C-alpha cells in the first residue's frame, strides 16, 4: 500500500509541472497587466510604467520569468501578491479554511442526500420516485450555479428571511479571535452562546448551492451503480440465504455500488472547487474562490499562479485519498498489485 501511495505521489510531479506552466501562461494571456490595473484610470508615464514593470520582473522575456518562477517554487518561495505585498502562501492558507468548510458542508449534503436518493430511484426503477429523483437531478445538474444561488437568496433570504444573504457569521453580535480560521471550530471554542448556530445559519444556503451539482451527479451514479449490482448473482444468493430485502440492498448491494460512487465523489471535488469560485462570489464568502476572482481582476500574477497550483495540489491529494479509499472498499484492488 505504501508503495502504491508513493508511486501515485511520484506521478504528481509531471502533472504539477504542467500546471505551473499553464497557470503562468494563462494569466499572462489576459489583456492588461498588473501595473495598468494598479495605477488606475489616469495611468502613468511610459517611463514610470517601464520602471514598475522592471521592479516586478515583468520586463524579462517570458521564458526567463518562468525560469525564475520555477526556481523560486523549488526553494519554497511562491512569490508575493502584487496587490497586498504579502506572501502568496500566507494569503492562500489564511483563506483555505473558509473554502474547506464550505466545500466539506456541500459534500456532506451532496452525499447524504445524493446516495439515498440514488438508492431509492434504483429500487423504485420506472416508478414515480425514480422519475422524481432523476428529474430533480437533471434539473440540478443543468442549473447554472450563479443563477441558482441568486434564486435561493431571493426566496430564502429576501422573501422568507430565513437565512442571511452573505458572510460567515453575524458580525454585530459575535466577536472572537480567529484561531483555526474554521469558523465552526472557532465559534464552538469561543463558548459564546449562539455563535455556533449563527455560523451554521450562514453556512447552509451557500453549501446547498454548492452541493447541487455534485448531489445530482452522485444521485445518478448511485442509481446506475445500484441497478447494475442488483442484477448480480450474489444478490440472488443473498436472497436465497433468507436475508431481508433491507439487508440485501443496504449491505450486499450498496457495498458494491459504493465502489463506483466513491470514485465519482472524488472526481466531484475538482468541480466543487470550480463551483466554489462562483458560490463564494455570490455569498461574499471570504475563501479561495473569491480571492482568485479578485486576483484575476487585479492581474495579480503571483497570486493567480500560486492559487491555481495549490488548488491543483489539493484536488490531486483528494483523488489520491479516493484511490486509497477505493482499495479499502474493493478487496479485489487491494491485493491486485
Amino acid at each position, binding site marked *: 500500500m505504501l508503495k502504491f501511495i508513493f508511486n501515485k505521489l511520484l506521478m504528481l510531479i509531471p502533472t504539477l509541472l504542467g500546471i505551473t506552466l499553464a497557470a503562468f501562461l494563462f494569466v499572462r494571456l489576459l489583456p492588461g497587466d498588473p501595473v495598468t490595473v494598479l495605477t488606475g484610470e489616469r495611468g502613468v508615464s511610459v517611463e514610470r510604467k517601464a520602471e514598475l514593470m522592471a521592479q516586478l520582473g515583468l520586463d524579462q522575456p517570458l521564458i526567463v520569468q518562468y525560469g525564475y518562477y520555477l526556481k523560486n517554487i523549488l526553494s519554497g518561495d511562491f512569490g508575493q501578491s502584487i496587490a497586498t505585498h504579502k506572501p502568496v502562501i500566507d494569503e492562500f492558507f489564511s483563506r483555505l479554511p473558509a473554502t474547506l468548510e464550505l466545500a466539506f458542508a456541500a459534500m456532506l449534503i451532496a452525499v447524504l442526500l445524493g446516495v439515498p436518493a440514488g438508492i431509492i430511484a434504483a429500487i423504485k426503477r420506472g416508478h414515480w420516485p425514480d422519475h422524481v429523483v432523476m428529474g430533480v437531478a437533471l434539473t440540478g445538474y443543468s442549473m447554472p450555479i450563479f443563477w441558482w444561488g441568486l434564486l435561493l437568496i431571493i426566496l430564502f433570504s429576501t422573501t422568507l428571511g430565513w437565512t442571511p444573504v452573505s458572510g460567515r457569521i453575524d458580525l454585530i453580535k459575535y466577536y472572537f479571535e480567529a484561531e483555526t480560521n474554521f469558523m465552526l471550530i472557532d465559534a464552538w471554542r469561543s463558548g459564546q452562546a449562539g455563535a455556533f448556530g449563527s455560523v451554521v445559519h450562514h453556512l447552509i444556503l451557500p453549501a446547498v448551492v454548492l452541493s447541487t451539482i455534485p448531489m445530482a451527479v452522485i444521485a445518478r451514479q448511485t442509481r446506475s451503480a445500484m441497478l447494475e449490482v442488483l442484477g*448480480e*448473482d*450474489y444478490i*440472488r*444468493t*443473498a*436472497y*436465497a*440465504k*433468507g*436475508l*431481508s430485502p433491507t439487508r440485501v440492498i443496504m449491505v*450486499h448491494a450498496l*457495498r*458494491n455500488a459504493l*465502489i463506483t460512487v466513491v470514485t465519482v465523489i472524488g472526481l466531484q471535488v475538482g468541480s466543487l472547487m470550480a463551483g466554489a469560485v462562483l458560490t463564494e462570489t455570490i455569498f461574499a464568502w471570504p475563501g479561495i474562490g473569491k480571492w482568485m476572482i479578485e486576483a484575476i481582476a487585479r492581474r495579480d500574477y503571483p497570486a493567480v499562479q500560486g492559487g491555481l497550483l495549490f488548488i491543483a495540489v489539493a484536488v490531486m491529494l483528494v483523488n489520491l485519498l479516493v484511490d486509497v479509499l477505493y482499495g479499502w*472498499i*474493493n*478487496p*479485489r484492488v487491494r*491485493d491486485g498489485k
Partner: protein
Amino acid sequence: MSLLSVRNLSVAFPTQNGWFQAVEGINLTVNPNEILAIVGESGSGKSVAMLALMNLLPPQARITCDELVLDGKNLLQLTATERRRLNGGTVAMIFQEPMTSLNPCFTVGYQIDEAVKTHVGGGRKERKEQVLSLLESVGIPDPARRYDAYPHQMSGGMSQRAMIAMALAGQPKLLIADEPTTALDVTVQAQILELLLKLQQQFQMGLILITHDMGVVAETAQQVVVQYAGQQVEKNSAYELFNHPHHPYTAALLSALPERALPTGLLPTIPGLVPGQHNRPQGCLFAPRCAYQQARCQTEVPALAQQQQGWIRCFYPLETETML
C-alpha cells in the same frame, strides 16, 4: 408425507410481444432423503421453476400454482416475508456460477456466518466455530485461513464448496442444486458431485439436482423428470427411465450419450432447436423435432398422463426396450 409437493406450477414473463410461458404446468414430488433429477436442454425452464419455488423471481414474473407444500407448510398461504424466512432454512439453493454467486466485497466466512446468524443464531464465537466446521465438512482445507479469504482469492471449485457450506448453514431439509458443476473444470465436477451426494446422505436431505448430464443422473437420482420447452415430458424412476424411455425426446437424449454411441462412432443428435416464444408449435411442442411424429401430433396437445410405468406426455409413447 412428501417433503415437497408442487402441482401445476406455471411461470410467465412479460415481453414486448406478450407473455412468454417459461414454465408450464409443472408437477413435482420430492420425498425426504430422496434425490430427484431434472434434466433438459438450456431454456427448458428448469432453473426458472426452482427460482419460482424459492420466490426468487423478479416481481414482474407471473407465477401460478395450484399447490405448493414444503415440509407441511402451504407456501401459497404464506406472506413474502414468511416465505423468505424459509429460504436458507428449510430449503436452500446452490447455483451454477459459484464465482459470481459470492459477494466479492465480503469474506467467505462473513457470508456463511450471515446464513448461520439468520437461521441458527448464537454468539459470535459459537457461530464462528459453526462456520469453521461447515467449511471443514465441505472439504475446504485450512478453514481458519479460508474464513478470511475473499471470493476472488478462491478457485471455482473452492467457491462452490463455500456455496454448499452456506446452503448447509441453515440445516435445510431440501437442497436445490441448479447445475452445480456446469461452470467447473471437468476434474472438479466429479468431486463436487460426490461431495453433494455425501452431504445429502449425511444430513438426510431431499435433493433436487438440475443438470443436463445424463450420466450424473443415472448414477445418483432415484426419480427423474425430463423437461422440454417449459413442460415436463416424462417422469419416472431413474431405473425405468434409463432402461425404458417412453417419450421420443427422452429416448433421443439417451441415445445422444457418448456411452451409447453407435458403433460407427457418430453421436446421434436431435435436429432443430427448442421452440422459442414465436415458433411454439400448435400441437406437441416436440413434434417438429420428433422422429416418430404423426398428423395428430401437429394439431393436438398431449397431456402428461400416467402410462405404463411413469408419466409421459406423448400420444405414441415408445414401447420398445432400448439397449443399455
